[in-house]
């Protein structure tokens, strides 16, 4: 690519609508799995705190799941869910999100100090009210920390889906590579990173609203 500049701005100007469409597709295939993961992680996490014996095997399983290469899982799913469909990309991403979110949810639910829980019971809170008014709010900083990791990884992983025909912005990498034209690749990297940054910002804001007492950082073991 002698003499080819890293970015040809006119190409970006000419393809704004196209880029927007890919960005929207990318946001859906990467973030909907994180939401589903969260919806699954909450009840599973609750089960694990109620029945602690469940947690070790579940955590070990998801540890292995997290190690599975995304491309390999996409490929293995193709015969069931089809080439280039949203499901083929979204099912593995949901599993990755769940693998991150389950431990953080359990950590969060366990982090409620026993005296606090007992105080709630003493004040006459039933199990349901104690859960919604005490335990879940206390878990918010942990869950949000997990969501940040899960969302950012999901956004970056979704682009690999381009290799099986459904990767949102990842398509730009294939396109640019096949034409030896770096502009789409650079645009893709920047847009993926921007989407991740914006998502991260939204999650931080959500934490500030939902858990204003939380400190600046709640670490995640990943």
């Amino acid at each position, binding site marked *: 690519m002698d003499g080819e500049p890293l970015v040809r701005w006119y190409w970006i100007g000419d393809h704004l609508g196209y880029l927007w469409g890919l960005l929207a597709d990318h946001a859906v295939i990467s973030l909907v799995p994180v939401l589903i993961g969260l919806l699954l992680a909450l009840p599973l996490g609750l089960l694990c705190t109620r029945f602690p014996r469940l947690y070790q095997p579940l955590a070990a399983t998801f540890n292995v799941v997290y190690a599975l*290469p995304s*491309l390999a*899982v996409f*490929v293995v799913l193709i015969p069931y869910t089809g080439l280039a469909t949203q499901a083929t990309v979204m099912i593995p991403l949901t599993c990755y999100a769940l693998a991150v979110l389950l431990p953080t949810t359990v950590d969060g639910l366990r982090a409620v100090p026993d005296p606090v829980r007992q105080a709630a019971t003493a004040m006459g809170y039933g199990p349901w009210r104690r859960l919604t008014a005490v335990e879940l709010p206390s878990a918010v900083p942990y869950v949000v920390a997990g969501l940040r990791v899960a969302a950012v990884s999901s956004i*970056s992983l979704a682009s690999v889906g*381009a290799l099986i025909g459904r990767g949102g912005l990842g398509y730009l990498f294939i396109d640019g590579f096949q034409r030896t034209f*770096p502009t789409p690749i650079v645009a893709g990297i920047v847009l993926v990173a921007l989407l991740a*940054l914006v998502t991260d910002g939204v999650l931080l804001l959500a934490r500030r609203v939902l858990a204003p007492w939380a400190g600046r950082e709640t670490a995640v073991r990943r």
Partner: protein
Amino acid sequence: MNWLSWISDFFSSPDRRSGPDSIANRIGEHLAISGEALFYAALLAVPLGLLIGYSGRGAGLVTALSGTARALPTLGLVTLAVLLVGVGDTAVLIPLVALAAPVLLVAACEGVRGTDPDLRDAARGIGLTHRQVLWQVCVPAALPALLAGLRTATVQVIATATVAAYVGLGGLGRYVIDGLATRDFPLTVGGALLVVLLAVAAQLLFAALSRFALPAGLRKQRR
């Protein structure tokens, strides 16, 4: 589904036994590129992480950096690197190092920072220099965190090195990508299975390492 027949097709093909497309050769290529990437990432990140963790300066920056690095799409970095430096190991090493280095940096930094402050004070108190405290107290105490970081980084690198095949390099990704391109399902599924097995093997290896490679004093604390 005829999964088992695909897998047996894959493993019974004569191409899998010898020649450039043999399983042994592809695994060798895969491990070589992954190992090289991990080596450079560790060379860059571990000393820096230890120093930052020990001095405590710039630790916030490390956390922020690791979050941003996670957002970089590997496929984008690989394709861009190929266009910039040409097809070759360097083009794949750049994104893999970019993937592994932040993980190791955070692990080293957090490991040292997590050392019991009383231990550090005691070590200083009996007259150890800063260098000695770092090497003899903080580094052994950071070992579990470092090993955990190395495990995460290794698994991610092994999984991601699959993508290298897209730009024409070797490794197990060759099977996956070639199979996709020619609609040869046994090839793709067999390759995917081998990558999964390799990643799981790496996990097990590190689980064993973290059990046996720790200093006796740390093992007793069950930390």
